């Protein structure tokens, strides 16, 4: 039917929609242009989704994925051909090289800074400058569930012929219940006979059910390749009040009286109370093995990690961070020591070396009070992911751990200048 036969209204609507489609293309082009020019540092870009649904893993990163990370701080993000947030690595380990895999969550993945600025890359550079023939490979993937690290290690880590794995998790991630939540990735679920088994509840999700069909593949291709489509998809997942841009309850409450920090004289007591409150559930879990189900999942996870690494002949260090460091003379100091004893017992009994990462980092920067400045960027400094100072401090802490606990091969520790490793 020719357009002249259409009613004027339908014809107008058609032309209006054509104009709207043109707008989609123009904005998409504009966003791409920003990404490939230095304007990416400042103008709006749409954060990438560097993965796709995966039937075994829940969500797996896409090899070669790239984009501009915008949350907290902007950085160019590029996954290598193995799907790792790292430089290109050969699967075959070069002769004489000591290969370490860094497992962890978003703190280790470190999307907020460039790859060269991550603590793993800094530590590798420093150690190589000191003559150590070493590779530190970033295997991390964002997500609060420690179990993701196990699957990640099995799929991406072992093919790299690792000599050592250093996992890094927040102490709170064992308390969050994520180990028992299989709605996004495999997790331990309670079976009828009182046992825990690996559950794949996430496979019931719409995105998983259609992961392999044409619609699912098209959807993934669109959100990975079209900034506008990705933007529309990401916005569609927001709550209605946020999507509409209505003022939230939080912004209204910000207009009332602002919470004031405690006076300096009470700061130590405040910090002590806070540390004691945060330590309490950790002690319940690691020393008293309560709640039982949570402990059962934690113990199962540690068993699986230990068994997996032993089967592949890889040593495992486990760095637990965010175990509160109470100020001196605080009664919670003894509670912390008791917690570490209990944790060490659990890890050591499975052949895993526990690293008190909070203390290691605090030692590097001169005490717990200095740790907050390692997190966050600009006006948000003090909380969030690691900033550049944070990565430098973590690199120093990591080198310290390695120098103490590992025979690093090519160059002897004695011949390496200490100043390089400790700076």
């Amino acid at each position: 039917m020719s357009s002249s036969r259409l009613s004027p209204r339908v014809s107008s609507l058609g032309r209006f929609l054509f104009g709207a489609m043109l707008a989609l293309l123009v904005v998409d082009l504009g966003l791409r242009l920003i990404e490939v020019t230095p304007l990416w540092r400042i103008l709006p870009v749409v954060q990438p989704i560097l993965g796709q649904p995966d039937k075994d893993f829940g969500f797996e990163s896409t090899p070669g994925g790239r984009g501009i990370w915008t949350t907290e701080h902007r950085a160019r993000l590029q996954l290598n051909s193995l799907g790792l947030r790292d430089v290109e690595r050969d699967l075959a380990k070069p002769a004489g090289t000591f290969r370490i895999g860094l497992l962890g969550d978003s703190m280790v993945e470190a999307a907020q800074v460039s790859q060269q600025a991550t603590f793993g890359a800094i530590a590798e550079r420093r150690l190589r400058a000191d003559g150590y023939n070493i590779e530190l490979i970033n295997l991390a993937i964002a997500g609060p569930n420690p179990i993701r690290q196990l699957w990640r290690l099995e799929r991406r880590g072992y093919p790299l012929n690792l000599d050592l794995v250093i996992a890094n998790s927040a102490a709170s991630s064992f308390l969050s219940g994520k180990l028992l939540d299989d709605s996004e990735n495999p997790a331990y679920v309670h079976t009828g006979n009182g046992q825990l088994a690996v559950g794949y509840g996430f496979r019931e999700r719409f995105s998983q059910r259609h992961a392999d069909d044409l619609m699912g593949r098209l959807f993934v291709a669109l959100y990975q390749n079209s900034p506008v489509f990705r933007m529309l998809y990401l916005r569609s997942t927001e709550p209605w009040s946020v999507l509409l841009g209505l003022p939230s309850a939080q912004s209204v409450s910000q207009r009332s009286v602002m919470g004031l920090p405690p006076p300096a004289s009470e700061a130590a007591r405040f910090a002590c109370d806070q540390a004691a409150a945060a330590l309490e559930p950790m002690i319940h879990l690691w020393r008293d093995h309560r709640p039982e189900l949570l402990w059962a999942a934690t113990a199962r996870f540690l068993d699986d990690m230990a068994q997996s690494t032993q089967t592949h002949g890889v040593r495992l260090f486990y760095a637990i961070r965010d175990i509160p460091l109470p100020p001196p003379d605080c009664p919670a100091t003894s509670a912390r020591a008791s917690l570490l004893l209990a944790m060490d017992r659990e890890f050591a009994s499975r052949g895993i070396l526990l690293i008190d990462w909070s203390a290691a980092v605090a030692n590097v920067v001169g005490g717990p009070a200095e740790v907050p400045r390692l997190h966050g960027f600009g006006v948000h400094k003090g909380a969030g992911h690691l900033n550049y100072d944070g990565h430098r401090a973590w690199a120093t802490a990591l080198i310290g751990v390695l120098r103490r606990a590992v025979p690093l091969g090519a160059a002897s520790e004695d011949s390496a200048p200490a100043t390089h490793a400790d700076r």
Partner: protein
Amino acid sequence: MAFNSLAYALLLTLTVAWMAIGPLRALMLIVASLIFYAAAGPFDMLVFVGAVVLNWLIQVAVPADRRRILAAVIVNIGLIGYFKYRNMLLGETSPAGSFIDVTLPLGISFYSFQALAYHIDVVRGRNGPARSFPEFFLFKAFFPQLIAGPIVRPNQTLPQIQRIFDDKSRRHRLLVFGLSLIVLGLVKKVVLADSLAPVVDDIFYVPPDSAYLAWLGAVLFLFQIYFDFSGYSDIAIGSAYLLGIRLPRNFATPFLASSIQELWQRWHITLTLFLRDYVFLPLADMRLVARRYRAMQHFCAIVLTMTLCGLWHGAGWNFVLWGTLQGIAMVFAALWSRYLPSPPAPLGWAATITFFVVTLVFFRSPNLGYAFNYLDTMLSFRGGWPTVADDAAPPWEVVAGVVGLFALHWIEFRLQQPGVLRVMRRAEGPVSRGFLSGVALLLILIPVTNVNPFIYFRF
């Protein structure tokens, strides 16, 4: 409700559609305005409705002479004084510790000034009064200009509003013009101002330790506030145009001005005209001193007017000093033009922009002490040539970016030429409407990493 929100896009679309085909258009506009302002919260709503009712009572109860002006001054300046300057007079600081007072009822500085202008113009016979409370309410509450201007005078919008009540409203056919203004405003706000905001915030968070960073912070703030406020004004004018009401222009590419007077004639034009007509002219024309001292009185009136302009922008001594410095610069420029030959235009432009950038530090700083500290770094050579560390942009990219911002300003100037309007007339049609609506919608949907409300909402 922010202009760059989906809620506003829906409200505007529904209101424009209703204005095109529905009955009771004036009532619809009032309802839309109330919905728009309700997003600010019940307290702000209460203050606003209270202010409208008080001003209406002044009209119906106080005779149309100096007593009405006095009553209007007491009510409107009293409202601003109570909410905006109470803390300053009591020596307290803003609870947020920010250069923006978040506890201020939304748009109070704008709607109070507008009400004051209304009463003065009615008493002086420049304009007839509103014929009914709904008419008066809509004049005050018309949502595109409610919370951050342009500050309209009764003779600019009241007759248009009365036509809507008489069901004889003008229906603008050049929808592309209104949509283009909205898109331009969204580009300024979403793409530019909101992108500059986190960088400026980071630099001003702690006083910078190098002159390079200090200058960068001040120059970027110059563009942030311009894009933010002129973007808001463009969206307001564009939205009003779609609803059949023409609002006055508020910005005319001010950073192309080659003197400080010209800059103020092109920056926040409706406020400048308000201050000229209701503050400066009465002060300058008052017979206070002998004829030979009238020039002195004229200059004092300029400085005082600009000091009040500074105070209007914020309840802090940094704003007072900022305004006073603008006034002194205007007097200096006036004396220069009287006794000395005009400098070449590029030199005048450079001096004007440099002065405006430097004095904006007072505007952006939370207090005077911070501002002097910042300026101390800015006007030194501390820090030397910047080094590239921690993924930072190389200085050449930063300089190119700043040059690009000035280039964008010049492009905006070119877009305001009459030829562009002719192009729009030719392009008017469903395709261009669909295109501009689509672009506007997508700009609204661009993810925000930091929530940056329009800066002038809280002035």
